[in-house]
């Protein structure tokens, strides 16, 4: 059952991405209404997919790459819906939905069977670790999209052109604020994710920290965002610098999540496929 729901929500995200892309070309506001309805429906069905998999598996389904990709995408769409409601940013869906779709397609290509839970994952802490980490990552994705939109808008303003897209993009102020807000949520969540991960590691392997690639890279990511937050609050790194840092941070996030799994061997390897 959960696989059906998963596939339907992937299809809906696909449709929404199409409509959002057409919107970028035609800039007809009617399209947005359809796109956001489709995304909302996709999110509801995706939620059903998660719940039914939870019931069918008997554990929180965030234990292999298929599950975590799907969970990450679910969080991203959740953040999109919240930010979209709160800030009414027209273009946001055109940037976030394709990212969620790519994760979903990736997850679609991976083995989807429910397997008996590996012993190290049978921990009270593990689901918290994953949920915190991915919710944080979803906010970093939002910060990334705001960064990209900021650079586009800034480029148009600096080059003194009034492109049609620039007119629809939010103002620099809104994009910079949203970048900051998403860090304010994302950073504590990432911190919690690392802490709960360490606690879980203590249960699973008998040590809090072991410098395996995943751990190292999440620490690098953590330092990147910590640096950005610090500079922002002290010397007023904002605007372009903050946008670039949010993009850099997101690349680190992706590498920590996917690159490490696929390229570097380590303890998190069970989450390979």
């Amino acid at each position, binding site marked *: 059952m959960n696989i059906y729901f998963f596939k339907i929500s992937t299809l809906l995200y696909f449709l929404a991405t199409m409509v959002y892309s057409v919107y970028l070309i035609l800039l007809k506001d009617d399209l947005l209404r359809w796109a956001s309805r489709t995304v909302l429906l996709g999110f509801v069905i995706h939620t059903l997919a998660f719940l039914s998999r939870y019931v069918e598996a008997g554990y929180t389904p965030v234990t292999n790459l298929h599950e975590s990709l799907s969970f990450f995408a679910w969080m991203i769409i959740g953040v999109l819906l919240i930010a979209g409601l709160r800030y009414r940013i027209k273009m946001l869906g055109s940037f976030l939905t394709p990212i969620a779709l790519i994760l979903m397609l990736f997850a679609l290509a991976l083995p989807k069977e429910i397997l008996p839970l590996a012993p190290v994952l049978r921990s009270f802490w593990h689901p918290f670790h994953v949920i915190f980490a991915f919710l944080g990552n979803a906010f970093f994705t939002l910060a990334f999209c705001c960064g990209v939109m900021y650079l586009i808008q800034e480029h148009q*303003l600096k080059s*003194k*052109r*009034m492109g049609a897209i620039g007119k629809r*993009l939010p*103002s620099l*102020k809104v994009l910079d604020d949203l970048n900051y807000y998403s860090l304010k949520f994302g950073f504590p969540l990432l911190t919690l994710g690392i802490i709960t991960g360490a606690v879980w590691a203590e249960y699973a392997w008998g040590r809090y920290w072991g410098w395996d690639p995943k751990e190292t890279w999440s620490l690098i990511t953590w330092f990147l965002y910590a640096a950005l937050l610090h500079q922002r609050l002290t*010397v007023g790194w904002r605007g*372009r610098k903050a946008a670039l840092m949010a993009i850099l941070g997101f690349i680190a996030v992706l590498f920590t999540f996917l690159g490490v799994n696929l390229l570097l061997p380590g303890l998190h390897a069970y989450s390979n496929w």
Partner: protein
Amino acid sequence: MKEKLNLGLKLNMEIIVIGLNHKTAPINIRERLAFQDSEIEEALRRIRSIPSIRETMILSTCNRVEIYATSKDIEKAVQELKQFLSEIHRFPLERFERNLYLLIGEEAVRHIFRVASSLDSMVVGEPQILGQIKEAYQRANESKASGVILHRLLHRAFHVAKRVRTETKISNHAVSVSSVAVELAQRIFGTLEDRVVFLVGAGEMIELAARHLVSGGVKKILVTNRTYERALTLAREFQGEAFPFGEMSVGLKKADIVISATNSPEPILTSEQMIRVMKERKHRPIFFIDIADPRDIEPEVGDLENVYLYNIDDLQKVALENLKDREKEAERAEGIVREEVERFVRWYQSLEVTPTIVALRKKFEEIRVRELEKMLSLHPELTEKERKSLEAMTSAIINKILHEPITHLKEKDEEAMADFYIDALQTLFQLPQSSEVAKEEEDARI
């Protein structure tokens, strides 16, 4: 459905527009001919009493004065309308006759469609004109000066305006330097409400630009000027704060938007100075509008991060770019107008007596044949003779029913009301020429 049978009378009612606008007449003449709101009712009543005119409406705005009318005797109607304009305003006709334009039939239809869609406005795309036409139409309705044709014409005009507004981006472009500045400020700061504007200089240009920003939502204004008194006066006007010229950096630290227009021969702000200011500002974004000639602000200032610098040429370039976009949109709008004029003319031509009678007969005949066949197939026992008499009887019934309305329509005395009857018949019986238009009119009302 354009058979030349000439059975009934042809409706030669024509739509005419007579008037003048910002393109044909200078302001002093437009002023003389404009109608005050309070005068319109009386004016409509007087036009109504002109025998050659059937329906009428007056559109009077600061850019145009136009009388819409329908008439069968155009020449006479035009003469009388000109006389009327001259008399009611006590203004000799020869003073304004050459400023008048006269449009008839299809041209008049195109004209009102273009006016309603703001294609004929001084500032193309400005939205007020539609409201003004709606008001003019309402007044004509209240005074019972408008009839079937103007009703339809105006409803179509509103429909066209709506199409132009939703299908083209004609009104989305800032085309004046000041409105471009406001639009840019909004793209940087979002809402302008909490923004601080700093005016460097106190000339007319500055005042104008500041006024635009205030209408865009800005509340706090700072002013500095070489002669401090001028700064004080301007600050008082905007309930702002004045600085001596020497303390410019204080203003630069506080401001979000800086408008500069001094007549200093050299730049008053260099990029070295600005780098220091930006540090003090903690790199909060700042938007410079340099409208001075020669420039007040070194161009390199615009290369700094979080600094946006537009001089008057940049603003003009953007305005021109927008204007070009808008012209492209206007072309698309003209296409919509063409389409709608064609549609209206089709409806208008169907308002003739003969085709309507033909269509009405055809409709009745179809019903008769259909019902008769149904009945005959249910009763195969009927003899040929019985069938013949049923046929004759049903034909007689529809002829009798149609006899009086048709005679009525053909009567010369009823000529004046013909359009009303025809429209009613077409709508009530859903006759083919009008059904399509009628449906669209429904859409336009919603």
